[in-house]
């Protein structure tokens, strides 16, 4: 081949030993096998598109790691794939959910919901049943009739396709199921055979007049029942057969109308999953249950995120400056100790703080003899949250600032002091601006992190204490993301994923906007220096 000179400039051409190749191929084989199995499973449960994508991924992986070219991609592919799966896909899915009514009562598709509602009955008398064949080999029901409310025995009946007639003689009953024991002239069917008849759809219903039917429910029981809802497929309405009230499709996946008893507006409990357009977004701003708390929660979220960044940065830089003085002894020991709050998992330390701050038996109140409601007073709870977050976050800022301070050339500071600047002026005009250049993007990152710092809020106060004069689920310390969580799982009817997806998209846009703006600003800062 004539590409010899080209080969010489290749920077990646390790000599591959047989062992290395073996490891490479077996790893590749394992990944392919796993992905292949995943694709197979996906295909089996009907996820055709994901299965095809996975299959394509297998080809891509094999091609990429078997070819000598495309070297950067070899490093990037795992990251790219996981970013697509865990980063981009959830965002797409959230956006989709935000425009639907996906929530408790709206999981079924419309067809299933309609058949589910059509299966709602009003039950009257209750029957125990024994299926049997009579002397002609015809299927009959031997029935014992009961009042559903009083459980009173209303006598024995024999049911045929056309009629329900009183039995000439009272049946004897089974001791457990109370099903009649077949008298002479009838051959009882076993439960299994009876179930088979029901499953095949061969069990008939008996018309009892007045819209009521005897309907077989199980191999040993049946009911006198009437359908509760009549569905008009042309108008897409349900009519309540008890009082004739019409329930109309409200366009948001439910049928609503006037309740028979109370005359108030009500919805049929079962609805269906559908696209609701901008409804979730409009609700956030127009429905007082959600909109009332929004400005308050938003302001506190910004205050919380900003104060957290400011306090952790101030304390972190302060401590870093302190330990940057060469005269101090045991600096390394102190520095190591200061990392501890950062090194302990937040989940643990936040729960420990929650215990410490408990007003009744918490260590802080017990030791000091104070009676301060750290977490139960709305304002104090906010202070406690900031205090704990400062404690958790300052070691990070301290680490970052220590590194950045050491990178600032000391000549600059010396030059400044030669020019007659005092220590504060040096810090204000030389150290701090240079520090900001290095840490600016981190501060923005820290702001976004705290904007969505669900763990700290939820573990420390659960968003509480609750506010008395509020019509919303939001407590005094709820930030947007914890409020979203409450909207999703604890504010109304079961789980409301659609609404909370809409809120999370708004949060996403806020954070995206702020980050974009501040990165532009920090770029400007960089240009200045």
């Amino acid at each position, binding site marked *: 081949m004539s590409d010899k000179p080209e080969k010489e400039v290749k920077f990646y051409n390790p000599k591959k030993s047989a062992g290395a190749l073996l490891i490479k191929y077996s790893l590749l084989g394992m990944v392919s096998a796993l992905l292949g199995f995943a694709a197979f499973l996906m295909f089996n449960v009907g996820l055709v598109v994901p299965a095809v994508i996975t299959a394509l991924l297998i080809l891509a992986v094999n091609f990429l790691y078997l070819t000598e070219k495309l070297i950067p991609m070899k490093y990037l592919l795992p990251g790219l794939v996981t970013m697509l799966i865990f980063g981009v896909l959830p965002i797409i899915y959230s956006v989709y959910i935000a425009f639907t009514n996906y929530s*408790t*009562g709206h*999981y*079924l598709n419309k067809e299933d919901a309609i058949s589910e509602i059509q*299966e*709602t*009955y*009003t*039950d009257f008398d*209750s029957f125990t049943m024994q299926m049997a064949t009579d002397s002609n080999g015809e299927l009959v029901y031997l029935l014992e009739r*009961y*009042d*559903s409310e009083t*459980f009173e025995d209303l006598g024995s009946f024999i049911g045929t396709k056309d009629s329900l007639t009183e039995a000439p003689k009272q049946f004897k*009953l089974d001791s*457990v*199921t*109370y*099903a009649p024991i077949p008298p002479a002239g009838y051959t009882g069917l076993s*439960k299994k055979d009876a*179930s088979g008849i*029901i*499953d095949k759809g061969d069990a008939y219903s008996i018309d009892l007049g007045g819209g009521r039917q005897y309907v077989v429910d*199980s*191999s*040993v*029981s*049946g*009911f006198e029942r009437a359908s509760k809802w009549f569905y008009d497929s042309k108008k897409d309405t349900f009519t309540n057969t008890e009082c004739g009230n019409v329930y109309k499709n409200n366009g948001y996946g439910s049928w609503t109308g006037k309740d028979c008893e*109370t005359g*108030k507006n009500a919805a049929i*409990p*079962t*609805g269906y999953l559908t696209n609701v357009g901008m409804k979730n977004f409009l609700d956030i701003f127009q429905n007082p*249950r959600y909109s009332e708390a929004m400005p308050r929660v938003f302001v506190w979220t910004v205050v919380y995120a900003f104060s957290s960044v400011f306090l952790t940065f101030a304390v972190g830089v302060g401590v870093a400056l302190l330990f940057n003085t060469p005269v101090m002894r045991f600096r390394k020991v102190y520095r190591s100790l200061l990392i501890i709050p950062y090194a302990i998992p937040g989940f643990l330390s936040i729960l420990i703080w*929650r215990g410490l*701050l*408990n*007003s*009744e*038996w918490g260590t802080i109140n017990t030791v000091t003899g104070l009676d301060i*409601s750290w*977490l*139960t007073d709305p304002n104090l709870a906010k202070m406690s949250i900031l205090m704990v977050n400062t404690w958790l976050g300052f070691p990070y800022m301290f680490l970052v600032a220590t590194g950045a301070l050491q990178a600032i050339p000391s000549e600059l500071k010396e030059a400044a002091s030669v020019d007659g600047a005092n220590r504060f002026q040096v810090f204000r005009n030389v150290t701090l601006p240079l520090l900001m250049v290095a840490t600016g993007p981190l501060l923005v990152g820290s702001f976004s992190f705290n904007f969505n710092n669900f763990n700290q809020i939820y573990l420390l*106060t659960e968003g*509480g*204490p*609750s506010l*008395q*004069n*509020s*019509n*919303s*689920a939001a407590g005094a310390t709820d930030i947007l993301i914890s409020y979203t969580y409450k909207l999703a799982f*604890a*504010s*109304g*009817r*079961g*789980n409301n994923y659609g609404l909370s997806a809409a809120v999370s998209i708004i949060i996403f846009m806020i954070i995206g906007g702020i980050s974009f703006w501040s990165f532009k600003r920090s770029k400007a800062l960089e240009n200045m220096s």
Partner: protein
Amino acid sequence: MRLQGKMLAAGVACAMAAAALLVPSATAAKPRLVIWVDATKVDAMEAIAKDYKAANVEVVSMEDARNVLQTVQAADAPDIFEGAHDWTGELVSNGSVKAISLPAPVVAQFPSKDIAAFKYDGKLLGVPMLHESIALVMNQDIAGKKCPTTLENLVDGVSAKLDNGKINTIIQVGPDAYHFFPMLSGLGGAFFKQKANGEYTTKTLVDKAVDSAKKVNILRGWQATGLFQHYAGSYDATTGPFAKGKAAYYITGPWNSNAIRDLSAKKDIKLCKFPTIVAGEKSIPFSGVRGLYISKFAVNHDRLQAAKDFLISYIASSATQKKYCKVNGCNPSNKNAGVSPNPFTAQFLVTYPDAVPMPNIPEMAAIWGNVGDAWSASLREEDPSSPKTAFENAAQNIKDAIN
């Protein structure tokens, strides 16, 4: 070498084919039923499942079944699952369950409130297996031998010990609306108005708990005496003081029976009804019922009839429920099945006859949250606003939530 490999492969394939033929022929006679149960009830369910002749019952331990049901694939889904009665409304709205029609004589064997608990929109959705309600657990070494009949009695009996620091608090109780319901009902409140037959209407009576100056004063009195603990902690954090003898009373349910039995070795413990707070109003707890639901997947699996047979002719019977609770230690729901073998669990039944079932509408999450918030706001000493506002707000929020 290659040939050997092929022969081996062929052998494996033959063995698998043979196994595939054998397995169905061994089980084809009986249908299969898959049951999901809460981890604490697996042993009990297995004990009764193995004696059921008409089907092969497979018991699977599953936490949070009602939410898992939304995402599970049909092949892995259960035919029957065990759960609490207050899931009923949500399960119906989501179309996750199939109605069960127990024959009237079988229904008659259960307390009517256990049946009502599993009814939603006129349909019966579950077969009750056990019931439970919270009670007032009394440390007789501190509070004397007799159960207090009024809250005033209760406070008078132990206030001296609170003043001299022998105890820190009078009643230790979890920080939520469930454990506080006896106090809400004792003040004349309720989550919802009930019809004569026990069915809930949608009219909330939460604000009735503080509808007079007298009741507000009672609440203010609770703040002042430190009758209850303050509630920034979780439920777990509240189990300590009673065990250490620093609280005279403890409000909890039969799930803590074993802990109470252990404590009773060192302390003299008795279970009481809740004392009257306002004359003419009963202080009653919620009753919780757990039972079996038929999942919508039983239809997909063609096992709906098998599941119904299992519930109607086996699970509902007193003998089965007795055996189930013997293993699990619960109080069976069937009236003919006796009581729990654990003496303290059996004692918890003292409050059961008066208890009302927890409502089972899908909006319960909002109601628990709002009533819980109203309690914690009302019992905060430093809060200047009136408990009346807190409860009126809660009532308004509940009205908004269910419409």
